[in-house]
């Protein structure tokens, strides 16, 4: 075909210009793909953190603001109402961490019935504290307690076993033993985080004490990178039965978090609004709004990728398109006599325009190939050099900042809730997706088309009489 022959010859003749335009497009395309990959990497890192904290299937979490803290010195100022006695007292206190309020378990069913909700599960995040309250006699000068008075704490999650795919436990992978199942709902069985198990020397079959009650360890579980805030997972009903809070003997029919799965991503906003209407005093948080609450270098990277990166890519792309267009128009201007001659030979304008366009499109395809290669290079550099990012998020959305627990008036203060916020380290990897490569090819060809359109427009307007009268 003559057009292809002519095309090949012209591209080879103007090799330097072809290479310059293709490289210009390649740089723009390479930047777009690299930044897209970096953005996807940041998004994946965010998702990894959020899913690890709240479970892979969780789209929305519901929590309640805690009741106002009691005034110092009031009868309720102590969470546990402890007073040093004549003897040392061994305590095993299972209670809510500060900063969380309670929701009725009936709300779980109400939320589950909302349109767009596929499942809802309750959860109870507790803290188990083991400490020795020293006798009044053992207090040092000025009431200073001995070292044994400081509590050891473990975090305990009550898991709704009717919906094991929702909540933090959904992300846990069984390392040994087995997972918790629906038949365990009323049993004193526990799954223990692998790090905690290693620290405490626990294995499957070990016994642990939670709230003065013996639990049998049935599984050792491992949370994915960046997640897994709880040390111990037990059936929700057992957690409710054993926990105490603000004078309540137990937390039967209470949860502190409801995990919700929406039918699909597009319904999350609507479901969020429905829940807010149903539970006006609750804090309703989606993954998207939670992502906004992430702080740390991951948030910085996300901001950099979303703002500076996006604009840099757009500017580079516009510059590449502009350079390609200008060079193509300039090339057409240099070929005025050639095109004029072809028109004099009887070539229609459309055929001349097709020639210019096809040269530009081939240049665009070359740019796409080079751009994808550059993108892989850029992504490889990011993956090699990217530092480990840290992300800090609220352990339970809507929870208040960590509070101190006062043990009576003896002057013993200890921050119990270390996990009101959660900081994790994630290594960012920038994935190049097929979509990004297809986007790159489309953009490069679009760049070629735009450049070719300008050149073609110039060629179409060319009057042969002017072209032939031109002296070169």
């Amino acid at each position: 075909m003559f057009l292809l022959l002519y095309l090949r010859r012209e591209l080879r003749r103007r090799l330097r210009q072809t290479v310059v335009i293709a490289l210009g497009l390649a740089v723009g395309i390479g930047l777009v793909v690299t930044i897209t990959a970096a953005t996807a990497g940041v998004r994946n890192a965010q998702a990894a953190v959020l899913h690890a904290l709240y479970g892979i299937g969780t789209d929305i979490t519901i929590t309640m603001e805690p009741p106002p803290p009691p005034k110092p010195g009031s009868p309720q100022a102590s969470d546990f109402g402890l007073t040093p006695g004549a003897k040392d007292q061994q305590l095993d206190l299972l209670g809510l961490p500060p900063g969380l309020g309670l929701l009725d378990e009936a709300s779980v069913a109400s939320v589950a019935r909302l349109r767009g909700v596929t499942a809802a599960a309750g959860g109870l995040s507790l803290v188990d504290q083991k400490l020795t309250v020293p006798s009044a006699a053992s207090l040092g000068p000025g009431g200073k307690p001995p070292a044994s008075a400081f509590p050891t704490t473990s975090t305990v999650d009550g898991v709704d076993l009717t919906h094991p795919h929702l909540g933090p436990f959904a992300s846990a992978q069984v390392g040994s033993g087995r997972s918790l199942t629906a038949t365990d709902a009323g049993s004193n069985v526990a799954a223990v985080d692998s790090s905690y198990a290693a620290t405490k020397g626990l294995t499957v079959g070990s016994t642990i004490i939670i709230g003065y009650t013996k639990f049998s360890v049935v599984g050792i579980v491992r949370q994915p990178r960046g997640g897994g805030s709880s040390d111990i997972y037990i059936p929700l009903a057992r957690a409710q039965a054993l926990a105490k809070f603000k004078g309540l003997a137990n937390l039967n029919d209470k949860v502190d978090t409801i995990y919700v799965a929406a039918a699909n991503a597009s319904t999350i906003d609507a479901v969020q609004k429905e829940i807010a209407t149903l539970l006006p005093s609750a804090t309703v948080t989606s993954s998207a709004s939670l992502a906004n609450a992430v702080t740390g270098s991951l948030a910085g990277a996300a901001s950099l990728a979303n703002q500076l990166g996006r604009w840099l890519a757009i500017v580079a792309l516009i510059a590449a398109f502009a350079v390609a267009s200008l060079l193509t128009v300039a090339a057409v201007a240099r070929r005025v006599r050639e095109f004029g001659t072809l028109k004099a030979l009887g070539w229609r304008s459309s055929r001349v325009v097709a020639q210019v366009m096809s040269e530009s499109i081939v240049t665009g395809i070359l740019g796409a190939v080079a751009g994808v290669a550059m993108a892989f290079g850029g992504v490889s550099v990011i993956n090699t050099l990217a530092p480990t990012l840290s992300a800090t998020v609220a352990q339970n959305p809507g929870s208040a900042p960590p509070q101190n627990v006062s043990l009576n008036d003896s002057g013993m203060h200890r921050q119990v809730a270390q996990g009101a916020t959660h900081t994790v380290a994630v290594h960012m990897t920038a994935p190049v997706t097929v979509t990004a490569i297809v986007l790159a090819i489309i953009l490069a060809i679009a760049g070629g088309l735009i450049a070719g359109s300008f050149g073609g427009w110039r060629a179409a307007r060319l009057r042969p009489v002017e072209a032939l009268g031109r002296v070169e």
Partner: protein
Amino acid sequence: MYTLTGVTKNYRKRRETIEALRGVDLDIADGEWLVVQGRTGGGKSTLLQILGGLDRPTRGTVTFDGRDLTSLPESTVTRVRAASIGFMFQAFNLIPTLTAAENVEAALVPLGVKVEQRRAQVAGALDSVGLGDRARHLPSELSGGQQQRVGIARALVKQPKVLLADEPTGNLDEDTRDEIISLLERLWREQHLTLVLVTHDTAIVERAPRVAEIRNGCLSIRQDTGTQPS
């Protein structure tokens, strides 16, 4: 072949109007060899462009083969040009990236001739100008005379009714010029072409049966021997 009636062509140059042709009346018969002479800027090339349908007159009519080129749409004029009008240029105007054969082939592309037939016609055209053995050479590998022969082959490969040549020997040395003139004369006689040449070249003028002169946009016939190709 051609009938020009009251053809006037005005150009705007800056704020000035230039009359390149002023009411030209001219008949060109089938198979005629007409040379148009005149000073530079006198309107010779403008006349050639109007004859070739590359430009339209400001006023007047140009009838080619019974069709008024001035009233036809551009696409139709392009088709007429592709099928019936051959062009030769002073600077040869060959496409530098294409070989001699491919340059000749370019004239057949708009006619939709099949590849095999196209190649046969190209080979014949190059043979007729004595360049059968230079078919694969690029223009840069050919002499000026050879390039103009390729130009002639390109103009004639489609077997046009008329060949319009703008200073075809202007860029050639004396020997080559004579070669080209002889070649054109031979082809004119053999193919019964209508040949319209714009030139300053007295050697061509001496051999042409009919000579017109343009002065200040006005055309007059200076010589008419009535000789037709034998």
